[in-house]
């Protein structure tokens, strides 16, 4: 006996389509187009009342999808490949709806598609979307269980869904807090490639490409003290030590320095690093040590020559780590092997030699100062879209228009020509401070390149920023403000709308930061910390499953009690009628389902004739209340209610 579930096909297709919305942003465009085609054709079949294609066609489509995934990702495993495959197969599954189980499986696939999207994004917007999607899937399951669907009855499916959601929240909270966070021991098995961001080479244009990105790179939460001045925050990503004129790269080295680990009593900065930015752990030059909340992550960190920190493998998830920095922001960079910071691939040209000769000072500091000063005036300009510079000489003597990478690369090379150890540092400068909290958001547009040289007199590395010589406003205002006021890649209508766009983004960013902070912070360490607050010792931590079980039983008991207390809403006349029937039942007058009030009246007359005189006025009143167009007033209802109550007290003649 099969129920006719065809009415549920269109809602299911709509559900799958809604489920695939994040796909537009997270998956390749061709997969979105395929999904659209699959779902559109399925919708057409429903409207045209045509049969679905034979099963071999669906199998063929599945094979084609698998091949397309392989072509794109060279694998069908891994987060993105498997996620994309899952979304496409979910669309194809809508062609295989033969029984209730198929509909159920399709809605379960929607949950898995949701999960695959969450692997790629956990933003606030996605979270809001997830809530809506989960509610819709559940409402669909309600409709599926009732084996009917009507768009007009959506409220009937949504209302119990909301009630169920409401009841589920306490269990969700208890599970979230008490469920022991364990490691499965599996890696994600995917080689993440940096999508955008800092790399270990610098070429003209590499930073200026990045600066057009509003994508969040990391958030820095200053746990002690205020947020420092933006101009003092240089987030070091990678040290580039091989000069090739304007191009800089990093020497391949296996050298690793054991990183300082743990908190050493300095100022703590908590960093929430977004995935997709290679393996760099951004730090300040005042960083003494770096640490992760969970000690098992310790072995993942390495410190590179030049004092930058990296993960051994590219990050795949959002990571949280702490920087322990020296007070007053004092730079703590080790001297290292200075010879490697003097290498140049090419000898300076005659024109360069002549320039360096003019810039040479009596002391090292004077030379550095002269080189920097050379960029102030002398026709140098700052631009985010500089003309192509073929070489260092071409930039310095011909185009003279450049971005931070041009100035950093040329300054460091000129310093090396002058026999001063120097290196280019790539990373981020500044960030956008939060309105409410002590953190800064650092985005792609804050990408920057600057120079460090070794000060012989002070025996320490010093940071210089040649971009500040050319365009001081860029550093003082921050990239965002600078771009709002000056040169911008954004359309004019956005810039003209009184910066509403940036303000709105900042507000969203506040919420997002809090949400992401919550999501990332609640790990094993935080779980232990939280439970310790409730007096749960470390030794009791192993008993968490028991506590979880007890909590669930307790919630079950409370919910059951609440359910038992629930009173259905009956109209006053229905309530009175029920009370009357209950009394008549005691008098052995049984109402059959088909019995109306008049039949009941006849039964009373036949079985308890002496009581009929009491029952008749009540039944007449109830018939009046129920079936006439003139509802009874309150006094009449009160009178009927009193009569029903009195009826219970009467002794029944035998």
């Amino acid at each position, binding site marked *: *006996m099969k129920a006719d579930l065809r009415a549920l096909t269109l809602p299911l297709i709509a559900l799958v389509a809604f489920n695939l919305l994040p796909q537009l942003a997270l998956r390749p465009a061709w997969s979105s187009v395929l999904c659209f085609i699959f779902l559109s054709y399925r919708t057409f079949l429903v409207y045209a009342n045509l049969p679905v294609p034979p099963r071999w066609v669906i199998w063929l489509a599945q094979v084609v999808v698998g091949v397309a995934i392989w072509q794109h990702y060279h694998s069908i495993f891994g987060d993105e490949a498997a996620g994309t495959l899952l979304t496409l197969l979910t669309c194809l599954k809508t062609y295989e709806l033969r029984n*209730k189980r198929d509909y159920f499986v399709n809605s*379960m696939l929607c949950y898995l598609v949701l999960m695959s999207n*969450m692997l790629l994004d956990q933003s606030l917007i996605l979270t809001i979307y997830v809530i809506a999607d989960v509610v819709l899937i559940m409402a669909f399951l309600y409709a599926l269980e*009732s084996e009917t669907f009507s768009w007009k009855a959506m409220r009937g499916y949504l209302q119990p869904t909301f009630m169920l959601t409401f009841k*589920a929240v306490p269990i969700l909270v208890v599970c979230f807090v008490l469920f022991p*966070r364990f490691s499965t021991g599996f890696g994600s098995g995917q080689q993440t490639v940096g999508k955008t961001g800092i790399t270990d080479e610098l070429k003209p244009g590499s930073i200026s490409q990045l600066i057009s990105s509003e994508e969040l790179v990391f958030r820095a939460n200053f746990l002690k003290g205020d947020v420092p001045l933006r101009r003092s925050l240089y987030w070091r990503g990678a040290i580039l030590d091989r000069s090739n004129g304007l191009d800089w790269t990093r020497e391949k080295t296996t050298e690793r320095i054991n990183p300082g680990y743990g908190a050493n009593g300095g100022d703590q900065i908590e960093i929430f690093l977004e995935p997709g930015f290679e393996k760099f752990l951004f730090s300040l030059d005042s960083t003494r040590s770096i640490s992760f909340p969970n000690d098992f992550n310790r072995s993942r960190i390495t410190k590179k020559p030049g004092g930058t920190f990296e993960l051994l493998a590219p990050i795949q998830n959002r990571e949280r780590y702490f920087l322990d920095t020296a007070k007053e922001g004092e730079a703590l960079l080790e001297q290292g092997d200075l010879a490697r910071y003097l290498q140049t691939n090419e000898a300076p040209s005659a024109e360069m030699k002549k320039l360096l000769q003019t810039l040479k000072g009596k002391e090292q500091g004077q030379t550095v100062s002269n080189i920097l000063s050379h960029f102030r005036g002398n026709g140098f300009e700052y631009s985010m879209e500089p003309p192509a510079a073929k070489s260092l000489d071409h930039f310095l003597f011909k185009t003279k228009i450049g971005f931070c990478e041009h100035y950093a690369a040329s300054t460091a090379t000129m310093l090396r020509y002058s026999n001063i150890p120097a290196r280019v540092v790539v990373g981020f400068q500044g960030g956008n401070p939060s309105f409410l909290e002590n953190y800064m958001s650092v985005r792609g547009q804050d990408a920057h390149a600057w120079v460090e040289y070794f000060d012989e007199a002070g025996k320490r590395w010093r940071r210089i920023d040649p971009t500040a010589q050319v365009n001081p406003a860029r550093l003082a205002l921050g990239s965002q403000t600078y771009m709002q006021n000056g040169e911008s890649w954004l359309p004019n209508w956005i810039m003209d709308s009184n910066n509403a766009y940036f303000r709105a983004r900042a507000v969203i960013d506040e919420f997002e930061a809090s949400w992401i902070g919550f999501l990332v912070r609640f790990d094993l360490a935080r779980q232990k910390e939280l439970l310790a607050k409730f007096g749960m010792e470390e030794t009791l931590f192993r008993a968490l499953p028991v506590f979880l079980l007890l909590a669930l039983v307790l919630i*079950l008991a409370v*919910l059951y009690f609440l359910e038992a207390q629930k009173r259905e809403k009956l109209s006053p006349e229905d309530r009175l009628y029920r009370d009357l029937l209950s009394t008549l039942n005691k008098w052995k007058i049984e109402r059959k*389902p088909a019995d109306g009030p008049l039949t009941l009246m006849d039964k009373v007359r036949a079985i308890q004739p002496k009581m009929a005189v009491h029952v008749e006025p009540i039944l007449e009143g109830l018939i009046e209340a129920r079936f006439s167009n003139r509802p009874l007033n309150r006094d009449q209802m009160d009178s009927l209610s009193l009569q029903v109550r009195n009826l219970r007290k009467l002794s029944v003649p035998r």
Partner: protein
Amino acid sequence: MADLDRWIMRENRIYIMPTSNGGLYLAGIVVLILTASTYNNNLIFILAFFLFAVFFVSMLQTHYNLKGVRLQYIGAEEGFHGDRIGLNYYIVQKRPRTKKSLQVRSRSKTFVTLKQAREDMRPQEMMKAVRVEVRAFRRGVHKTPPVILETQYPLGLFRAWKVYRPEGEIIVYPAPQSGPALSPRAFDQGEQDQGLRTSPDGDFGELKNYFPGESYHQIAWKHYARTHELYTKVHWGAEDRHYVIPWAVANKQDVETYLEYMSGWIRKAVDENASFEMETALTSIHPGRGGEHARLCWRALAMVPPPSAGRKSKGAS
């Protein structure tokens, strides 16, 4: 075995288990938790725990949807082997509650449920009549099958059920088959034992003794008013159609097939409005006519024990 079943499945007690869909749902949650742990992804943990919470609460709701609901057996219709037989029940609830997707189906090795009942109950409904349609695997007098009152509301993740074992019998007649032709027996002169009388009014050919089950329309009321004796009017042309349905199972003949032939002859007699009498291994039925008489005969056929239950059949002996 039946006792064990009776002991395990007590009447009116609620039992609850996840459905296969519930198992699938739970497997999905496990996948989510493993993924969340692998990627240390709290958002997926939240989704997994939410789904688990829904699973948990839906268990409660499924159980509660059946609480306070009882099933009362009204009775069963009689029918032929192979036909749909209706079993009638009341779903009764004591407290005013909304109950959704209550399903009733029989649970028996003798019957297969063809149409199970599916009803919602509103708070103002104390009882609701439901009908389950079954088909018997064989003819006979069967015990009323145990019946399951169940629900999978709200999400189909759990199935809560109650078992009822109503007392009663369901009579399943042998399916009428057209077998060898049975010739009507003509009335002879000496057949006064049939109670044939000459019509006092002359409107009808004959009167014969009334047998219970015969149509009231055929009763000679005027004659009854005068004599206070019940006679049935026999029309001209019909009076000579009388069938004697014999119990004459040949030695190697299949009893069940023969019963089906007998069932077919009864139907034929009823269709022709002929009188008929019948004999079975257990009983013989006096001549009579009409639907009620036919039912009497069919019941007698249903009661003939199957050959495996002991060969008492006269014809077979």
